[in-house]
């Protein structure tokens, strides 16, 4: 009808964007979709034209917030699906690497200039959530669940009027950037704290584009140290502690939300500053260790390249989980399955085998929210559904009530079509011990320690050495505090663990 009245008006139907019960959540998502759609669609048109001009003929895939990819036609119509795809790609890349290298449980840690993004990855699979935030708005679409905290290498340290040292939320970003980058930044940042502690800047950074000025870092921190009545090195240590404690608080909330114990996880560090701070965060969280992949600066790009075709389907049912309710699942499930297969093989033209996973949003009657509960497609009777939900509830909340009535709100289906993945190259085995290029005095917790500096390119599989140590490479610096030890695995990952 709208098309008759106003043929040029873009129409977004919330029931098509994501058909869930809860009118506000559904509407806000549709409104955001309508808001971004014209510009993104226009951009995609130009992008496609530019590719054609360059003679690129392969089909274009666009990354999605759910960690998958979709064809460009769908992207033009459902732009809202792309909103958090950048962080999602990083998580997908980290998940792929972690699984290939045999790390079953990792927390991805992507730290850039302004924020630290953390996600839970089990067996290469990220966790998904709905209602992730963009500014003031919650986007109700299945999204790779990423907790973002406003702490990065560029976060600015300051002393508040009551004499308390604070870090962030202001960030020097990339311009003017940290004082030690010599691009006009004057305020002390977390990166400056690491430089003032002499823990970074001993090898070329940013492929030669960045030179670390240690004196500038110390000069930026000096006035803060003076106000606090402590040394520059102590102030630098406190700045790192405060920044890391903000990350700890956020990651704690994340682990509680997904009911996981960080002690069973590795921190998988990437982004420009991830490897610089990962060990400090690992110490607070008590994780099993830290993994730094060979090229931490390009993990997100890898994620985009290897992502599967993936789409989510949902049907709100609102039934009691009893014999009648369980029987009522069959028809909608068959419909969802048919729609999903049509999406993958029809609209996306995928020829391979479809991977389908089932879940349901379930709750105790009376609760105001649901838990997404994985379902076994072979066991969809009431008893099995209830058992699956009780297990999920116990995992998230520490208890379950086997006698309470249970309601199934939404039935959900995810379809994926696997895309080819490159095999990871293995690196050469070490013939002798790792040899540092230089030894510097690094400051840890205000104490100066003799700290060897290694070049990443010199390290070989099987190399093992204890912290303190610094490992420099073009796209990041890995800092290993005392009490940690590094081992290089056959893929060239730095695997850093706490010494017993």
């Amino acid at each position, binding site marked *: 009808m709208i098309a008759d009245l106003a043929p040029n008006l873009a129409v977004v139907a919330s029931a098509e964007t994501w058909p869930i*019960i*809860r*009118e*506000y*959540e559904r509407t806000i998502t549709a409104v955001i979709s309508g808001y971004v759609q014209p510009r993104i669609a226009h951009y995609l048109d130009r992008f496609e034209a530019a590719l054609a001009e360059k003679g690129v003929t392969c089909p274009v895939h666009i990354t999605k917030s759910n960690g998958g990819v979709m064809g460009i036609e769908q992207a033009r119509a459902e732009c809202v699906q792309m909103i958090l795809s950048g962080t999602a790609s990083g998580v997908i890349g980290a998940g792929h690497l972690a699984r290939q290298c045999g790390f079953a449980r990792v927390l991805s840690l992507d730290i850039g200039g302004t924020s630290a993004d953390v996600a839970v990855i089990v067996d290469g699979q990220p966790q998904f959530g709905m209602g992730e935030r963009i500014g003031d708005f919650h986007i109700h679409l299945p999204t790779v669940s990423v907790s973002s905290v406003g702490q990065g290498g560029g976060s600015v340290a300051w002393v*508040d*009027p*009551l004499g*308390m040292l604070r870090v962030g939320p202001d960030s020097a970003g990339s311009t003017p950037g940290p004082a030690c980058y010599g691009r006009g930044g004057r305020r002390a940042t977390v990166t400056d704290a690491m430089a003032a502690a002499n823990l970074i800047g001993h090898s070329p950074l940013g492929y030669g584009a960045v030179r670390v000025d240690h004196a500038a870092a110390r000069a930026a921190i000096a006035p803060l140290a003076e106000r606090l009545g402590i040394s520059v090195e102590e102030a630098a240590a406190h700045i790192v502690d405060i920044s890391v404690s903000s990350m700890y608080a956020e990651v*704690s909330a994340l682990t*509680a939300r997904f009911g996981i114990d960080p002690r069973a996880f590795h921190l998988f560090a990437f982004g420009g500053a991830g490897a610089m701070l990962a060990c400090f965060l690992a110490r*607070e969280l*008590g994780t099993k260790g830290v993994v730094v992949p060979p090229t931490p600066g390009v993990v997100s790009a890898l994620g985009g390249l290897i992502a599967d075709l993936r789409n989510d389907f949902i049907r709100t049912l*609102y039934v009691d989980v009893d014999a009648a309710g369980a029987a009522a699942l069959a028809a909608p499930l068959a419909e969802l399955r048919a729609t999903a297969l049509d999406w993958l093989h029809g609209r996306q033209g995928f020829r391979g085998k479809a991977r389908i996973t089932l879940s349901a949003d379930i709750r*105790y009657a*009376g*609760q*105001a929210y649901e838990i997404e509960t994985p379902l076994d497609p072979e066991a969809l009777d009431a008893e099995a559904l209830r058992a699956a939900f009780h297990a999920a509830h116990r995992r998230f*909340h*520490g*208890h379950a*009530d086997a006698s*309470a*009535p249970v309601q199934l709100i939404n039935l959900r289906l995810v379809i994926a079509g696997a895309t080819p993945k490159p095999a990871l190259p293995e690196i050469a085995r070490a013939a002798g011990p790792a040899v540092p290029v230089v030894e510097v005095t690094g400051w840890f917790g205000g104490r100066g320690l003799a700290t060897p500096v290694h070049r990443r390119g010199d390290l070989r599989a099987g190399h093992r050495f204890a912290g303190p140590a610094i490992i420099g490479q073009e796209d990041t610096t890995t800092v290993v505090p005392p009490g940690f030890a590094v081992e290089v695995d056959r893929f060239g990952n730095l695997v850093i663990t706490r010494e017993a």
Partner: protein
Amino acid sequence: MTREGLAFASPSQFGAPWYSGIDYGPLLRMFDDYAPGDICITNDPYSGNVATHSPDLHIWKPVFYRGRLACFVVGHIHNTDVGGAVPASLSRSLTEIAQEGVRIPPVKLVAGGVMNDFAVAVMRANVRLPDQNWGDLNAQIASVNIGERKMQEIIARFGFDAFIGGAERVLDYAEAQARAVLSRVPDGEYFFADSADEDSVGGKPCRIALTLRVSGDEVELDYTGSDLQLSSSLNMPTGGRERHPLVMVGLTYVLFTLDDSLLLNAGTLRPARAVLPEGTVVNCAPGAAVGMRSLTCALTQIVTVGAFAQALPDLMPAASPGGNAIMNVKTAARNGRPVMASIGPVGGGGGTPFCDGSDGAGGATGFLRNTPIEISEAEVPIRFLRYGLEPDTGAPGQFRGGLSAVMEFQVTAPETVVTARNRNRSIMPGWGLRGAHPGRVSRFLRNPGPAEQQLRNADLVHCDPGDVIRVVGPGAGGWGDPFLRDPRAVLRDLARGAISAASAEADYGVVIRDGRIDAAATAARRARRRAVPGGLFSHAAERRAFEAVWSVARYDALTAFLAQMPVGWRYFLKHRVFEAVAALPDAAAQDAAATAAAMARIFADLCTRFDLPAPRLAAE
């Protein structure tokens, strides 16, 4: 909580932000000793004055580290129903705490790892939907268990002594923050009073009076002059504790508005103390009904903002109007099972010196979450006809008040009971600041239309299938002269349906023709301006009419008189005085001496009539 019971950390992202500075000390001390694994509960407002009405079930658990008590983790949940005389347990019509549901005195729910089944059975036997309460209780138990584990992790990381010292320093820091804010508030004494519509069903207004004394970096909130204890459930069970959270909510809001980096814990309240005379609505005697204390608490917030507005006229907003009803619908589902759901529209936020008030979410109640109507419809056999923002409900101002929410639903099952908690502002609306308009009254109707029934502040409505209930939240006051509002903002409001064309012209002096501002006509219309009300506050006609009879002097005389009467007589005598004062000439027609004499005569007559000891006169 510290081992002494002072909150040193409280959530900032969820829950009612009223209790950030709570002191559990009186409750904690009711037990001689604690052992690892103990979990205690109570909902009794008169045991330690920590719980504030019966639906709030408080829970606390000691955290031990290597055998030493390190801190407590605590929390409370508002249970939708804890039994008593009405569904959802709360109604202003109730007159004693015994009618407000089951009272669980402080008890170890878990001791030595064993659940106290009797305590659970008592609770279950005395509530309407025991499975809901049982679910809530399990959630609470899980929360303190996780809290205990998290605290133990922190202590293990930093060490016992560093943890204990750190908690103290967090309190000290919050205190220093609060003092820094208060030192920027001009010293002085600032008085403000406001009234709830009714002190009982169909009753008289209930006044909250506050004298705010700011001196250096400290502040005293003297509630002397507030109404004496009522025989309805508007009383607040503070026990006279000078930092009781219920009388400090407004202060916390003001401080946080002036500096949103405040930590908010018990340290925040250290520079403050309240004066809470016994036997008053702000400090009732044990046994009094307290269910609706949030209505009264909303008023304490409003008078706190009003008092600070005098000290900081360029920084304070018009108060959120209060009287935001929390509604529950209880009915029988089609299968006969009773079901209950919480819904409820609210008023907007007051206009501020910098921007309009927030629409549909009063600043003071932003912590209440929206219940999607699709969920309510799925849960309860009711059908929503409207849920949105009501035009022309935000009081005109240079920065207008936020729009009120409107909700309209149709009942489809027999024996449906709608309870509307905290209904207020149906008779006397909120106020505006600096020449803005005051707020509008809230509306509550059954079957809107020619045969509509005004429900005003009713908090219990029995409905039949087909009945339509319509609620419009109380309107928020504005800030600043509406004739100074940017005409483009008026045009935008009109285009968005926030105001009517009539309001644009009459209230804002903005003439809009064919969707455009007529600049010349607007200038002419604004030049013929009405007289701008002088003074900081603009009050509605309803309040001015009330104050024409009830001047501050007369009301002060009333509360001073009642304070000398036995607690059990106060409410009764207040109503007799109201009847007598109605016969007096307008307050403006009497000078101070005549007012004092007339009031004294009324009091003396009543004491003679009811054989009560004669009151001392104010002058003596």
